[in-house]
């Protein structure tokens, strides 16, 4: 499995921290080989790194140097083999939430990216999107719109069905939560096949909202989820080989 690390990244960024930032039993140690550090994931990657570089300290000389916060975030995510079923390497973000610095940095990276882009809606997919979306929404002055499994939202909803490996699933959004012409980002913890995010995009587009970008903490690039998003760009912090 190839490791994607830009040759311009300073060597210190490739090293996992010597001491975990939180004291947990050994079961919480991550499997480092499963996590690759992502430099850039969206098709607008130069743009992404220009803005990231511009907002950083002047010590960062080149645009292609990875933000040092990314390494810490990547190393705070643990991988659980064979969950929810054999063969799946589950990317567990709960350990990221236990690392106050890493969680703060995760939100800061998204906020820095979206704060001056006229975004009035942050949509988050149940349930892990509910963890990252609201802090971002609050920081950039946007509404938070939950996108939920069927029958959880009370009152009038619109739904969108999407395919699973076997069968289909549905996500729902409240009628009237968003207005035509609003600019939105969609947040989830992870993009795998892209089915859920694609359904979320369709739901928002049906009511006339412009989706500026989809944003996830983790991407599983081998599953090619990005291809399901059509014209909508994707921004992720970490790529995983799992």
């Amino acid at each position: 499995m190839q490791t994607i690390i830009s040759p311009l990244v300073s060597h210190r960024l490739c090293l996992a921290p010597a001491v975990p930032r939180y004291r947990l039993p050994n079961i919480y140690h991550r499997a480092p080989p499963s996590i690759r550090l992502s430099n850039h994931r969206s098709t607008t990657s130069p743009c992404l790194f220009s803005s990231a570089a511009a907002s950083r300290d002047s010590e960062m000389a080149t645009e292609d140097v990875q933000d040092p916060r990314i390494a810490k975030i990547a190393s705070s995510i643990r991988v659980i083999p064979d969950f929810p079923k054999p063969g799946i390497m589950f990317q567990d973000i709960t350990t990221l939430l236990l690392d106050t610095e890493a969680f703060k940095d995760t939100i800061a990276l998204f906020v820095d990216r979206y704060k001056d882009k006229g975004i009035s809606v942050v949509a988050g997919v149940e349930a892990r999107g509910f963890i990252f979306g609201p802090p971002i929404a609050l920081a950039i002055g946007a509404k938070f719109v939950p996108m939920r499994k069927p029958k959880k939202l009370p009152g009038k909803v619109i739904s969108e069905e999407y395919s699973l490996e076997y069968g289909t699933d549905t996500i729902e959004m409240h009628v009237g939560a968003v207005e035509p012409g609003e600019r939105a980002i969609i947040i989830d913890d992870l993009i795998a096949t892209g089915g859920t995010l694609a359904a979320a995009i369709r739901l928002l587009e049906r009511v006339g909202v412009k989706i500026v970008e989809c944003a996830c903490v983790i991407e599983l690039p081998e599953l090619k989820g990005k291809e399901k998003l059509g014209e909508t760009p994707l921004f992720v912090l970490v790529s995983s080989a799992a």
Partner: protein
Amino acid sequence: MFAAENGLKGDPRLEAISAAIRVVPNFPKKGIMFQDITTLLLDHKAFKHTIDIFVDRYKDMQISVVAGVEARGFLFGPSIALAIGAKFIPLRKPGKLPGKVISESYELEYGHDRLEMHVGAVEPRERVIIIDDLVATGGTLSAAMSLLESQGAEVVECACVIGLPEVKGQHKLKGKPLYVLVEPSGLDEFC
């Protein structure tokens, strides 16, 4: 205890929060006036007030853990945790958390449900607050407290945006303080 009785009497933020919550009659079943906080999340100012009130209360109480109950506790807990420098621990329905978990069952009106937490997420003697959007009977919060206390953590307080009439006048839940911002909103029909 309600915020208005505990230092925030007349605070206009409480009124804004209350006004932003909509009531949906007969959901999920007939006779229930569902307190829908999604409209609060659409009102950026009111949502910010909600978080600010909790943060102001907890920031100097040496809280190192905010535990949030799936799924609506996830909407409020992380923002509070980030602002006070605490960890966020999700308490989830069965089968959602990977790896080693402990679980606690609690009663519903008909039947039971279970709440799970990761082993090792909280350490003994850590000071914890538990967040949910609403407290009715207190069954879910009690289960949450049991999970945390079984790991040696100290539950300092349970905090909810809305408290149903059953809890009015109660300052404690299973011996621990309960802090609530508002009572259920009026009967305006939005849908």
